[in-house]
């Protein structure tokens, strides 16, 4: 009798093996569904889905990046979340976290791709240089551009983690010498989820992977492909300094009386009003704080081109381009045009008056 192929254990089985109680697991599922604002009753469905899910094969590609995104996820202050991510997924390839290196690592990636064709998820952090055939960043002699295309070809979905992968981020900042591009500018035929942030909030990553694994579909995304559960509201919408904004009480610097009293940071460049992210609600380091609470305005790091918005300390309502010389030139040109028009008009009047006097003289 032929032997049944042995299926990988489900996540529920894995957690049971590690002594995680069903109660703790349900609690975690409720937390996640609350964080993702899922409809009532979804916590059980999420828990069921997660418990029955087999480990999801994940290939994690790191391109033009600083490893901050991986650091943010792995050093998250929430050990349950962190371990859940890694329990949920079978991380078949990750530069920073895998033991293998060089040829062996590349072989592991290729093997995972062949074994899980059409079922694996590609996670990317970092932008992709596209200029000059993508030669500005290569791994084992393969350009990031080629590696991304080849790896994404048979993927189930692609998750772009961090602003560099989602929108090009810092590598794409002007003058963008390497022609850095976001993942969705290159991969256009696969479902893509963007989880931007510099770095992104760990809960967003855990939430999206859990959702993907348990419900087998993408969570609801906004027009920039960000999960609405985490990127549905602006920082300003949920900022605890908002009452000061409404009352017109602003810190003028980082060490003045206003700053010490916790007033709004709009005048010192806060980009919270146009930044969609969950920092103000989920916060960082296990809910300890977030930039605005620590006294610095929001940089807008989960928005496209946040590096090129005229400066982190430039208030949002100011113009982006230098105008002084252009306006001085316009004023001079305008004054010259006006003087010219007045002069022409004076000449016209004088000649009219001369004609009138001449006509009167003729009559006489």
């Amino acid at each position, binding site marked *: 009798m032929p032997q049944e192929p042995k299926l990988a254990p489900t996540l529920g089985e894995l957690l049971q093996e590690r002594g995680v109680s069903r109660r703790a697991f349900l609690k975690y599922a409720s937390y996640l569904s609350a964080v993702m604002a899922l409809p009532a009753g979804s916590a059980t469905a999420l828990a069921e889905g997660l418990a029955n899910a087999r480990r999801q094969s994940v290939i994690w590609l790191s391109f033009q990046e600083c490893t901050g995104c991986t650091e943010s996820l792995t050093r998250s202050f929430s050990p349950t979340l962190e371990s859940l991510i890694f329990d949920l997924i079978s991380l078949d390839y990750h530069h920073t976290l895998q033991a293998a290196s060089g040829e062996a690592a590349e072989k592991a990636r290729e093997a995972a791709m062949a074994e899980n064709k059409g079922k694996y998820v590609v996670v990317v952090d970092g932008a992709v240089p596209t200029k000059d055939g993508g030669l500005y960043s290569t791994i084992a002699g393969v350009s990031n551009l080629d590696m991304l295309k080849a790896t994404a070809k048979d993927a189930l979905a692609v998750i772009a983690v961090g602003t560099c992968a989602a929108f090009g981020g810092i590598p794409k900042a002007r003058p963008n010498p390497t022609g850095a591009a976001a993942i969705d500018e290159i991969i256009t035929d696969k479902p893509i989820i963007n989880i931007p942030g510099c770095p992104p909030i760990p809960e967003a990553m855990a939430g999206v992977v859990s959702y993907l694994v348990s419900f087998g579909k993408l969570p609801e995304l906004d027009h920039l492909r960000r999960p609405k559960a985490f990127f549905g509201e602006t920082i300003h919408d949920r900022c605890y300094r908002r009452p000061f904004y409404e*009352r017109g009480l602003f810190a003028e610097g980082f060490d003045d009386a206003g700053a010490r009293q916790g007033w709004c940071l709009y005048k010192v460049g806060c980009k919270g009003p146009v930044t969609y992210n969950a920092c103000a609600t989920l916060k960082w380091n296990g809910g300890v704080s977030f930039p605005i609470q620590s006294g610095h305005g929001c940089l807008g790091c989960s928005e496209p081109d946040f590096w090129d918005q005229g400066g982190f300390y*430039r208030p949002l309502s100011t*113009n982006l381009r230098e105008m002084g010389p252009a306006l001085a030139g*316009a*004023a001079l*040109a*305008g004054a010259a045009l006006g003087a010219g028009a007045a002069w022409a*008009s004076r000449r016209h009047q004088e000649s009219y008056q001369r004609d009138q006097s001449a006509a009167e003289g003729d009559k006489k």
Partner: protein
Amino acid sequence: MTLLEFARGPALQVAMIIFVLGATWRFFGALLLPWRLVPAEPRKGAPSPIAAAFKGVVVKMWPHKPFQKAGMFTFVNGYILHFGLAIVVFLFAPHILFIKGLTGLSWPALPSNLVYTVGVITMASLVAGLVHRLRSPVLRLISRFDDYLSWLLTLLPVLTGLLAAAHLGARYETLLAVHILSICAFLIWFPFGKLMHAFMFVFSRAMTGVRMGQRGAEL
């Protein structure tokens, strides 16, 4: 480039250049014309040109007795509109920051909530002004395209500013971009239509005062 980047960047830059160029052009073009258009000698006992000019400016700030009943709405509504606009434009913190970015000048702001309230009153006054204009056959007759366009381009920044403040109708960054673009449209039209009265009204009233004074006419 996002819509907001476009609005804060090239759109605002071009609009400001057109505004400054057009306004200085019209301003100097008018001011450098001959001031004494009437060659006749002033009447005996005519006030000095300075006094007449001053009177011309001040007297027109309130309707003459015979016209008080008919003109009261226009005056009161006009004051509400203009003071409202001045408060919204010059006393809202983000606006002051914009001006500071351009000129380096700044002054204290009013609480945002108060400015929003003034914005609503200003908008109501703009709408009331239009209704009054449309209901009066005489005003309708003398209204031109310029009047309606100037009205619309004044209303739009107030309306979009209020929508942005209330986060109503679209995402905030879109509303903010549309608000800035509506200001760009306002700035571009400003020097070429009746909006230019903001700079010229003092001079035109003064000139009327001088001319009338020269002829001995009571203003």
